[in-house]
């Protein structure tokens, strides 16, 4: 994939591919253990009203895995626009204590999820989820989405540029036909992918 396009379309999600390929004790730990620990921490954050004390431990695994702490803190801040909106509403509704919880709980939860995904490649997380009993078809579809996200985003970016050149900022029809072109070519791409898989001897998926 064109590097410049990759930076434009997906700096938000390719960063995890970079972080999760590191070498550290935390990266080497069994993905099932990391997944279970993350779920336990999320449950604790959700149920225990003083669970912010757990965050005092957060720098420890981050430094152990040699991950950039400020970047992780910033990454988890993606939840803040949404959660601050509802915190504001709750404050306005006369419940300041709940408003505070609505603000920090999503952020604390996101921090733990970011740590899991920064220390574990997605395919390992999916394999762990499969061994813990998650529906397999959903996990396979997730795998394919991740594989083709960059490819289709690049194509969508080109379509978007072409559509803007044809006046998509004013015309609904141009945008609609761009999406339709992307959809039809996704169907064709899926057929090619399937033939390529069969040619390489892939059997049934289930």
């Amino acid at each position, binding site marked *: 994939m064109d590097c410049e396009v990759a930076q434009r379309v997906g700096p938000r999600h390719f960063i995890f591919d970079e972080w999760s390929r590191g070498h550290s004790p935390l990266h080497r730990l069994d993905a099932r253990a990391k997944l279970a620990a993350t779920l336990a921490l999320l449950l604790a954050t959700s149920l225990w009203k003083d669970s912010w004390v757990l965050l005092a431990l957060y720098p420890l695994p981050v430094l152990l895995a040699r991950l950039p702490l400020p970047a992780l803190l910033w990454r988890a801040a993606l939840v803040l626009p949404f959660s601050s909106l509802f915190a504001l509403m709750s404050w306005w509704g006369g419940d300041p204590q709940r408003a505070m919880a609505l603000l920090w*709980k999503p952020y604390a939860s996101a921090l733990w999820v970011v740590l899991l995904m920064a220390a574990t490649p997605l395919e390992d997380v999916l394999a762990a989820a499969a061994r813990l009993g998650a529906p397999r078809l959903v996990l396979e579809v997730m795998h394919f989405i991740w594989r083709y996200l960059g490819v289709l985003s690049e194509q969508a970016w080109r379509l978007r540029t072409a559509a803007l050149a044809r006046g998509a900022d004013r015309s609904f029809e141009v945008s609609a036909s761009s999406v339709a072109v992307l959809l039809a070519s996704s169907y064709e791409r899926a057929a090619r992918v399937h033939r390529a898989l069969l040619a390489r001897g892939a059997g049934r998926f289930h």
Partner: protein
Amino acid sequence: MHIPDGYLSPPVLGLAGATSLATVVAASRRASGALDESRVPLMGVMGAFVFAAQMINFPVAAGASGHLLGSALLAITLGAAPAMVVMTAILAIQALLFQDGGVLALGANVLNMAVAGVGAAAWAFRLLDGGRRRRLAAFAAGALSALVAACLALAELGASGIRIPAGALAATLGVFSLTAVLEGVITAAVLAALERLQPTLLERPRPAARPLLSGLLLASLLLATGGFLVASALPDGLERLAEVLGIVGLERPLMAAPLPDYEAPWLPAPWFRKAAAGLLGLAAAAALCWAGGKWIAKWRNA
């Protein structure tokens, strides 16, 4: 609207999670049973398509722009069961890698967008589609999927005890209605463009529609969502209803103290109990509808 972690109370999380897990397991069984293996790459690529299509902006009045949400378009092109699986996978990727929606709240988000959203779109499209009405059917599918998902999300927040002032609730509902109309218009426009581009893509054999049953299911879904939303906004009326139905006595031993720590000072206990009563009522109504639907289907097939 993706609900983050830390918003929903344990009963809401548990009920939503159990419902969506059961539905998604059934949907993936149906999707992999009825379809050949070439559909697995198709489902994956279509999931990536929804992400990528969101980069293409649609101009709305006054310089603002919107984008496709996708669950209705997936339901129309792939069918209900595969679309539910794809939407679930999209929501899981968003929760893990985009910090969009929580991981524990995934069950609730799947229920809102992948189960109810896709289900409403599939029913509406199947009910209305036919000849020249396809644009209307696509619009209804898109608008309903967005509206049902948003109302369910608000209802879950309400049932978890998050009180939204009346003014803010009205504004939120207004924004949701506009989003729903936009999603309907985008879905219809994309489908029309797709039919001009590649008319064969949407031609696949459909099972004979059962308009009466679909209409009943759609109406009950809308009623349940709207009624539940009103009930969460006006808990006093709900309490009266619970008293009339005798749920209050039933719900007390059930909700005694499974999680005493959770009844924190900031969570008023009566409200919590009311919300639980409401959820219990909804579950009972859903079970009744399901059983009734089964019975009707059996009776019609006999």
